[in-house]
């Protein structure tokens, strides 16, 4: 199996064309394997989790509903999620044999995603705390403890602030893959006809340079396939649904707050 597609261009140079599309299937299988492994391991701790949920602490002094995501954050998440799914569908289905007119939907959706990401960067930088989502050394330690606990049992990591270490890591991975796909995607718009600027196939690079742009776009895409599978899996997992609902409704229940978060690391700022 090849990782990349290569060809000889008219000048006799061996150039990269992009990733080999079989990587899409590998990304999908990787997502599936992760899902199966997690489901298998989950059986070991789910009983304990249920017991802990039943005996969850409470603090009547706190609001019943604790705000976790603002309306702006939720709208951004919805736009980004729908765009991402559409981009993966339009990007990969034609490569695996389902033919339809995908290109316009793809680049228009890509621009919507880009706009939503720009909004998110501004919103997160000036109206939210970047610290909440930044991965620190303690998060890496927590992550290791979480994994050790999942595989061999043992001590649970300390309760996190607003976001658990795994969620922060996911955010970072999605940011890296997403930015690779977005930046290269915008460059690739110089190679198609669209109303924003004139097509100019050799504006930035020669055939060799463009090959790397296509490779990065493809790698970003396939990594996002795996991440999307994992994300959807966690979103529908029963013990994680309180988080999924919070992305829809904006708030979490007081008991979930006390059970899953450390109030010292993430103090309550709003709720009712």
């Amino acid at each position: 199996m090849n990782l990349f597609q290569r060809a000889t261009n008219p000048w006799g140079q061996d150039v990269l064309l992009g990733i080999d599309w079989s990587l899409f299937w590998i990304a999908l299988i990787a997502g599936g394997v992760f899902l199966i492994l997690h489901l298998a391991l989950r059986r070991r701790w789910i009983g304990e989790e249920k017991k802990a949920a039943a005996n969850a602490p409470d603090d009547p002094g706190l609001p019943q509903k604790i705000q976790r995501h603002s309306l702006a954050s939720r709208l951004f998440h919805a736009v980004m999620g729908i765009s991402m799914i559409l981009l993966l569908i339009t990007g990969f289905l034609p490569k695996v044999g389902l033919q339809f007119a995908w290109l316009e939907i793809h680049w228009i959706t890509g621009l919507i995603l880009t706009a939503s990401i720009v909004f998110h960067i501004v919103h997160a930088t000036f109206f939210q705390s970047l610290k909440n989502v930044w991965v620190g050394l303690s998060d890496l330690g927590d992550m290791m403890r979480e994994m050790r606990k999942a595989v061999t049992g043992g001590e649970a990591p300390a309760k996190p602030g607003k976001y658990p270490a795994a969620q922060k890591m996911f955010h970072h991975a999605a940011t890296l893959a997403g930015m690779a796909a977005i930046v290269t995607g915008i460059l690739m718009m110089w190679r198609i006809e669209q109303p924003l600027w004139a097509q100019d196939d050799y504006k930035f690079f020669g055939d060799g340079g463009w090959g790397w742009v296509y490779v990065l776009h493809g790698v970003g895409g396939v990594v996002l396939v795996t991440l999307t599978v994992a994300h959807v899996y966690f979103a529908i997992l029963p013990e994680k649904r309180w988080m999924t609902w919070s992305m829809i409704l904006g708030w979490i229940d007081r008991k979930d707050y006390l059970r899953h978060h450390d109030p010292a690391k993430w103090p309550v700022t709003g709720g009712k």
Partner: protein
Amino acid sequence: MAVIHDMIPDFELYQPESLDGALEVLDRHRESAWVLAGGMDTFDWFKDRVKRPEAVVDLGAIPELSGIGETDGGIEIGAMTPLTEVVDNELIRERYGILAEAAETVATPQIRNQGTLGGNLVQDTRCWYYRAGWPCYRAGGNICYADTPESMNREHCIFDASRCVAVTPSDTAPALIALDAEMVIRGRRGERTVAAEDFFVGPAIDITRMTVLQPNEVLQSVRIPDTWAGADFYFEKVRDRNAWDFPLVNVASAMRVEDGVVQDCRLSVGAVSPVPLRMDRCEELLRGQKISEDVATRIAELGVIGAKPLRHNGYKVPLMRNLIRRAIRGQAPV
């Protein structure tokens, strides 16, 4: 740059005597198989060593793919019927003269003796960047070498480009669209029919193929209904060399005209788009109109709205406009 070689690369040659046998081989080899009809397009590809299939399925020995027969509602032409037979067939000349006329403009007599109707419809594009074996979009790459500022793109499209700007070179396709023909496709799962205008696929949908045919399918025949039998037809092909060339633009029309008024019509133009274009908007406006120079000019003007010529093919816009005008005017009583 591809160079014609004396020898062609090795492949397994299959010469099945039934369509089922051919489909079985195609299904087994899928993308690595090549369907050989008359060989007019095929051997260029092989000698240039651009296409290197593992298996070649020669349809020449399958009797059910050849011949022209009358059916309940029209005629059916086997895909392997040589173009010369299409040109000479009395039934076709009498009822569907436009098809005979279009087939007669294909290449040379020798090529028409060997080339088939199916081959003329299914043949690959003539874009020389693509045929040279360079890694363009159509060949699975990420660029169209025919659409850069320095490209030579005199023969390429003025409509519906989507990364690739190649056109379908078929002369019989516009005539069959004008005749409202149906393509009969056979696969292992059975038969399906597709309207002639839907048989061709543009690069927006599938950039590596020219038609809806899947790797394990074969164009079995072309059915032409009675609907347009004996109508007023017009076909014209403009090419660089009248003796033997692919179209720069070709036009085909079928009309029912009474007292100079168009009752119904179908109009198709080839070599201006990756697929043969059916001119729906022109047809709509033409219905109910009394044919005149003025009507022909206005409708022809409408036909070229939206054209986006490349650097060297701007001439195709007035050429297409004039051919549409002539196709309409050609129906006027003399």
